[in-house]
């Protein structure tokens, strides 16, 4: 680990001033950033600890939920309103990591998790365009069973590892950002970037910008929602494919739907095409399959991950079928 300065922010203004300095990074639970610092993949000059700020989880005036960025994953997953109104979010969080990690990890930090690509992690022995832009990608010709099938580029095939973000993508969440230049909001689905030719730039955050909260809009159909994660062991593994979904069925037809995929792309993947294909359709396995296929039409397999296309289709269909059945 490269030596760094550590300060603990006591107020928002203080945090933004310090975080705006060159070489500074915000520190949440440290469950990913500190690991990456140990590998010397991340070498911040200063860490500004923001875990003392923005803890609250509060209902908004319109019946949504405002979740402070420093709320721990455990606090969100266990929150009564989250469990009642957005069960998919609660399930997504507990599907990730371990209880110990969830107790430390913050919402803001979770959004900014970096990929688990093993070539990205191999700082000394492998090429990676995320770590050293332009040097090439060893994952493309190497082990890429866990890599992307959607939205990848010739420069990067990594996936975003978060479970929580997949649920947030399905929920139309908004990210609240602060900086010394002022505050702004972004739809969560616009926070993360596809790799393109700059896989080192992973989000739309500007230098010094701090995630201060996540806002969930009121979304009645999310009361019937779920998250399903498919992985290589029963717990403590990243998703090969995950599906976050909410479904409202009236008179046998899909009235509304939210659908997002994890483990398939450089960002939490909102399945806009599948949603579009489903609205107004009968809630049948055929329609679910057609919708899943529509979403996966552009999927491209690598050497080892072709199974993910089939797995994503099956998992989407099963999750939608389960939600449709639950409403019957």
């Amino acid at each position, binding site marked *: 680990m490269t030596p760094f300065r550590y300060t603990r922010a006591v107020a928002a203004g203080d945090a933004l001033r310090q975080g705006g300095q060159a070489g500074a990074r915000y520190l949440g639970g440290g469950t990913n950033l500190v690991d990456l610092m140990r590998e010397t993949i991340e070498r911040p000059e200063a860490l500004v600890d923001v875990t003392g700020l923005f803890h609250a989880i509060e209902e908004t005036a319109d019946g949504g939920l405002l979740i402070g960025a420093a709320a721990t994953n455990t606090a969100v997953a266990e929150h009564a309103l989250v469990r009642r109104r957005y069960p998919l979010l609660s399930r997504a969080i507990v599907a990730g990591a371990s209880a110990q990690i969830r107790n430390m990890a913050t919402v803001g930090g979770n959004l900014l998790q970096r990929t688990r690509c093993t070539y990205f992690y191999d700082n*000394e022995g492998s090429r990676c365009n995320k770590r050293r832009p332009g040097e090439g990608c060893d994952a493309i010709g190497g*082990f890429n069973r866990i890599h992307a099938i959607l939205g990848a580029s010739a420069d990067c095939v990594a996936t975003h590892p978060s479970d929580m973000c997949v649920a947030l993508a399905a929920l139309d969440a908004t990210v609240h950002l602060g900086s010394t230049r002022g505050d702004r909001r972004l739809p969560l689905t616009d926070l993360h970037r596809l790799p393109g030719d700059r896989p080192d730039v992973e989000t739309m955050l500007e230098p010094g910008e701090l995630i201060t909260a996540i806002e969930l809009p009121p979304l009645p159909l999310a009361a019937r929602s779920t998250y399903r994660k*498919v992985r290589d062991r029963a717990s403590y593994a990243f998703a090969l494919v995950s599906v976050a979904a909410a479904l409202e069925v009236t008179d046998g037809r899909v009235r509304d739907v939210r659908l997002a995929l994890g483990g398939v792309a450089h960002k939490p993947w909102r399945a806009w095409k599948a949603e579009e294909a489903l609205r107004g359709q009968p809630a049948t396995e055929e329609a679910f399959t057609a919708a899943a296929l529509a979403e996966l039409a552009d999927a491209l397999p690598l050497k080892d991950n072709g199974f993910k296309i089939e797995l994503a289709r099956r998992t989407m269909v099963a999750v939608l079928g389960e939600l449709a059945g639950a409403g019957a």
Partner: protein
Amino acid sequence: MSMLEDAKQAAKGMAQQAVGKAIQLAPDSWMPGGRPDPLIREQHGQIGRPVSRIDGPLKVGGQARYAAEFALDGMVYAALAYSTIARGRILAIDTKAAEAVPGVVLVMTHENAPRMNKVPLFLTDQKAAGGVDLPIFQDPEVHWNGQPVAAVLAETQEQADHARSLLRITYEEVPAITSFAGAKAKGKHPGVFMGNPLNIRIGDAEEALAAAPFRVDQAYETPRHSHNAIELHACTVAWEGDRLRVHDASQLVAHTAWSLAQVFGMEESQVHVSSPFVGGGFGGKCLWNHQVIAAAASKLVDRPVRLTLSREGVYRVVGGRTSTEQRVAIGASADGTFEALIHTGTVAMSPHNQLPEPFILPAMSVYGANAFKLEVDVAYMDMLANTFMRAPGEAVGTFGLECAIDELAEAIGMDPIDLRLKNEPDKDPVTGAPFSIREVEKMWRDGAERFGWSDRAPVASRREGEWRIGTGVAGGTYPYYRMPGGAARITLRQDGHATIDIAAHDMGMGTATAQTQVAADRLGLPMDAITFNYGDSTLPGVVLAGGSQQTASIGASVIAAHRLLVKELLQLAGNDSPLAGLSVEEVGGLDNGLASLADPLRHETYASILTRAQRGTLVVEGTPPPPLETMHWSMHSHSALFCEVGVNAVTGEVRVRRFLGSFDCGRILNPKTAASQFRGGIIMGLGMALMEETQFDERKGRIMNPSLAEYHLPVHMDVPEIDVIWTDVPDPHAPMGAHGVGEIGITGVGAAVANAIYNATGRRVRDLPITLDKLL
């Protein structure tokens, strides 16, 4: 290993075979174990009791000090840099930035390391401990991707780690053989294991196979596995004048002391290695580069050094289980009798170690057949030396063999247990030696009854929601070994306390506990009157904690020492004792003293004997006879494994729902620690079946998942209720009637899971691990 070495080993093997024949023909009574250990009859003592680990409170209380927990005055911390190429030379190591880091004491490379001899390679000498025999920091040559190329010493671990990251190393790469296919194309070599060629031919197996009415002939593959003991490999070393002190995490302290003495050109007595507590060994806690580097660096700075490998470091420095490609072909008559048993294949191996993963060992002893063809070939790759990992050979060999038997049973239309029992041999099928113990039928019947095997459903017929349910069985096996070199010292005090000293090991399996129980029974003392000292190279004996042989080695050593003790006690007791006139064979330990076996009332306490003889202590050291029993009898442990799995019809995910292991391992010394060994082995086997795989990138020969996040081992939720039962029938020719149980647990598990998956789904997966993509 060179072709010349191969030839030398083969010649040695032939000589051994000739001696072996003579030993087989000798009378039983000439053999160690020919006269059963009197403790086999002992039914009311400590043996067989589920005694909790005697070191449990120390461990729970954090008082058990492991290798990386010795804090020595003036100690510095080490961090290693590893090569990023598979073959070539170091052109330059720029150490300036690293040396400028505050606290850095030394950057050691091949340019400034002290001159050292090569580490003696395991099995080339009785005390050789090295997993690899390449020079360490002696030249700029790179032999594998991940080889240590520099060490940084600093006042703190953090300073050393940071400085290490600032080293700039440039290489000149040369072509390397880093793909298995490329290695095989270069030519295969015959595998030689412990001096014996891995090549058995009995009859014409191919012809018999072709003529058999029922046949299975399939290819099976197993991947590389990396060692992942919970305790990272670590050592704390110090030079005390011209003596080297090593606190190691070791399963072979005496071997390590001797081997380090060879490396530094010293007398064996100048090196002291101790390892009282080890957080798991599994075959990996031997002598690798890191202890040598720590000792060399310590010598240069004249300060104690602590070196703890990072988890990545363990993957780069400590060898693992190599990959195998196996062919199993079995020809059977209509009643299931094996006409031909063929198990052949190729393993990847580095040229600098001694372990051509001997996956044919199970096929050499478990089943009878009219013709055998068993052979392991080796293809050499430029890679980290592969090494022993829990049941080397059997763990992966039983996967191919026991899956093939399942496939054959289906082809014939026979129950797979019946097919196995049909081919129970009446003597060792390869050597012809009689079995020392073989309760295989009871083991299968007991297991089948307890598991409810008769309820098994036809293939792909059970379903619960999304889950397809199936059950499967497989057999496992592991030999009884006892290696030469054992010795033990017993010190009996006048107050009736006894100390047993032996350079054996407890890597967490409960050696000290079980052996204290045994010593208590043998001496007739309560457990708290026994001190069992182990894990120190200054103690007697050269006892490897490997090959599941420690139980036998310690047992035989203590028997030898005990005989001397009893002989001396009888002499001291003299004619005034109730024991007068009795011979060594006629007495045993009882109630804090010796008693006549025929008449326990003829008894005298140790205190009484020693007091009368005016002796404060009595010290004896015994050495057991060479382990000829393993050649005179065919000595093996067996297991019958029953597995129920669920396979998700949507996702292909596999969940093991229930598992039963039924074991035939002689007498169980401590049911509590033994059950943990069985269960631990089974859990490791579940990992092998479903998830463990070292991702070796064949483009660069580099391991890509050196982390517990990406190298998957079972987590708690992957492990179901595991039931273990055993026959508990003593082996009359083994000390205490017991076999070691460290390795048998893992054998056969891969096949039991694969066979259950077939029963659930109708899909045969013949390459491990069985990940969900193979079942979609």
